[in-house]
């Protein structure tokens, strides 16, 4: 008997106990659906992370601190720093010339007094406590972070609302920390766009025996809300503005007291040519004489973490499939019990043990195959449903949505996997059927 004949016969047999076959296929299908939807979801998540990492985007960034490297510092993402060492234009040029460096973005941070708009904004929580006695937002001490806006694409800056400030313009972007301070929900980030803040750089000066603070104040139009990981400040400004503020502050006395950085650049953000080059570039920068930090081990941990998540999800799916496989075994054993006579007749007609085994294996495989197809379709649907919910959340957070793919490999893997699993599950029943004595053809007499 050929495989083709066996398949034709199995198709007829599956159709005979339609209810049982449908339930068995559904069990396999649901398990396969679980497995495939979990895999589709985790693949989408991982692809998103890997896209970032592989082509050397902001995630392949190295932060250079104005300090000498600490011995053995490369083993750590955030090593302790050595003695202070200013980063000047020479250092910047030297680091930019290192191999495997795609971009070097200077960062200038300067302490600042931030005066938010006088009137509480429409979206602000009226129960907020840090309003002034006059009922306006309390001015506060913070830091302005200045970067070359033209290089913003290389930086870990995400726009939540509005846009980035234009280089050279009296504009600023604020962080979500600023929104929190004002009691404004992230979903209403637009409320602060278009408002004006006044930012003052402090300078210490001596008048008689006392030290006073003089400010250099600028009016900045808030043009956007961003998430940035370059400095701890809530106000992102074009580099020139931060440099002007720093020039003002460093001309004063007691600069340490006001946390005014000594280094011309408070840091550099170095983009390596791919995540795999990060260690080499860090080593090179260490050789130049600066302390570095990079999220490389963090990224690895994240990847490991994602892999663990994937394994756990796959594990759940596999357990479901194993349960479904037991279902197949059970259904097939029941079929063998019920069809003892039929098996005997097949043998009387000349079927060998191998023929009988083949017929039952093909039957099990058919159930697995159909279950795999049902599972892929249902799983893709479920993943889409899940993506809909996730995208709804992402949209509410003003984040880019995820697009789910249905990788052909996954479809093939799930269908083939279900079929193979069903074949394995069908082995024992098929063996049992093959070993039934031909005498069963005569009935139980």
């Amino acid at each position, binding site marked *: 008997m050929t495989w083709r004949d066996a398949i034709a016969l199995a198709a007829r047999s599956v159709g005979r106990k339609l209810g049982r076959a449908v339930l068995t296929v559904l069990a396999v299908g649901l398990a396969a659906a679980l497995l495939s939807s979990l895999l589709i979801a985790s693949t989408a998540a991982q692809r998103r992370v890997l896209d970032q990492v592989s082509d050397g985007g902001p995630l392949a960034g190295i932060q250079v601190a104005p300090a000498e490297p600490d011995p053995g510092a490369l083993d750590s993402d955030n090593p302790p720093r050595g003695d202070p060492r200013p980063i000047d234009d020479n250092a910047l040029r030297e680091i930019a010339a290192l191999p495997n460096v795609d971009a070097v973005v200077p960062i200038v941070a300067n302490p600042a007094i931030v005066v938010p708009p006088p009137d509480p904004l429409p979206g602000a929580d009226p129960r907020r406590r840090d309003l002034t006695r006059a009922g306006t937002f309390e001015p506060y001490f913070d830091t302005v972070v200045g970067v070359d806006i*033209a290089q913003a694409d290389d930086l870990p800056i995400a726009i939540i609302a509005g846009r980035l400030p234009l*280089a050279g313009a*009296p504009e600023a972007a604020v962080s979500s920390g600023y929104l929190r301070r004002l009691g404004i929900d992230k979903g209403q980030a637009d409320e602060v766009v278009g408002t004006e803040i006044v930012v003052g750089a402090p300078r210490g000066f001596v008048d008689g025996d006392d030290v006073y603070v*003089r400010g250099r104040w600028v009016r900045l139009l808030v043009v956007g809300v961003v998430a940035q990981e370059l400095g701890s400040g809530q106000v992102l400004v074009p580099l020139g503005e931060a440099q002007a503020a720093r020039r003002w502050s460093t001309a004063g006395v007691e600069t340490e007291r006001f946390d005014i950085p000594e280094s011309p650049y408070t840091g550099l953000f170095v983009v390596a040519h791919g995540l795999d080059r990060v260690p080499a570039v860090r080593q090179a920068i260490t050789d130049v004489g600066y302390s570095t930090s990079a999220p490389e081990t*963090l*990224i690895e941990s994240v990847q490991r973490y994602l892999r663990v998540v994937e394994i756990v999800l796959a594990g759940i799916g596999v357990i479901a499939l194993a349960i479904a496989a037991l279902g197949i075994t059970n259904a097939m054993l029941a079929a063998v019990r019920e069809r003892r006579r039929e098996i005997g007749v097949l043998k009387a007609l000349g079927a060998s043990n191998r023929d009988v085994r083949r017929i039952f294996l093909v039957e099990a495989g058919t159930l697995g195959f159909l279950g795999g197809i049902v599972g892929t379709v249902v799983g893709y649907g479920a993943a889409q449903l899940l993506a809909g919910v996730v995208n709804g959340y992402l949209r509410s957070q003003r984040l880019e949505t995820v697009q789910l793919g249905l990788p052909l490999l996954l479809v093939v893997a799930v269908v083939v996997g279900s079929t193979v699993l069903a074949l394995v599950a069908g082995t024992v029943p098929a063996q049992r059927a093959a070993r039934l004595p031909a005498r069963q053809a005569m009935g139980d007499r």
Partner: protein
Amino acid sequence: MSRATLLVVVAAFLVAGCSSGRDDPGPPEAAVPDPETVLVIGSGSSEGSELRDPLREAWPRLVFAESLTRPATLVSGASGPATVSDALAFQLPLAREVEPDWVLVMLGSYDLNRETPPEVFGSQLRELLAALDAAAGGRVLVADLPALPAYGDAARRAYNDEIAAAVSEAGATLVSLANETLEPVDDEHDYQPNAAGHRVIADAFGAVIHELGT
């Protein structure tokens, strides 16, 4: 590493993923005029140190926010109980440093308080205005003294005469507050006007700035 940290990092990655996914060509260089810079020469009362919200209510702040267009920079030398001679010593150097477009001067209350003779006050003011004119090249606006209960009326008039004369000699512009009567911020600080008083002063400076054109 804690799981929370990892989750935060994963979230950050996703966020970072979003930003780069956006097709944002690098923003062009803005065509921005040079900022207008304002230098304030005065005493602590110009800082409004006793006001409830000095960073918004003091008159230099009001002028900065309302009478200038962006881009604008404000530097205030005003501090403490500054007299004209203090201003000469500690505030004048700022004019050389920041090269202001506008110099807003309001001095006299602490000279009055220390009973500096009007002619001495006048000569020191002439010296200051001449130096400012030499240093800044911008427009120098000088306010005279409004009526406050702490000021003796005769003395105030004598000072205002000196101010008017000095301004006229220096080619500066007078911001006249002589006919304004202001309320003190409280009994303890009767040399400082209250918020309404700061508003009156700011409006007077604003009117002159508007008249002269920014």
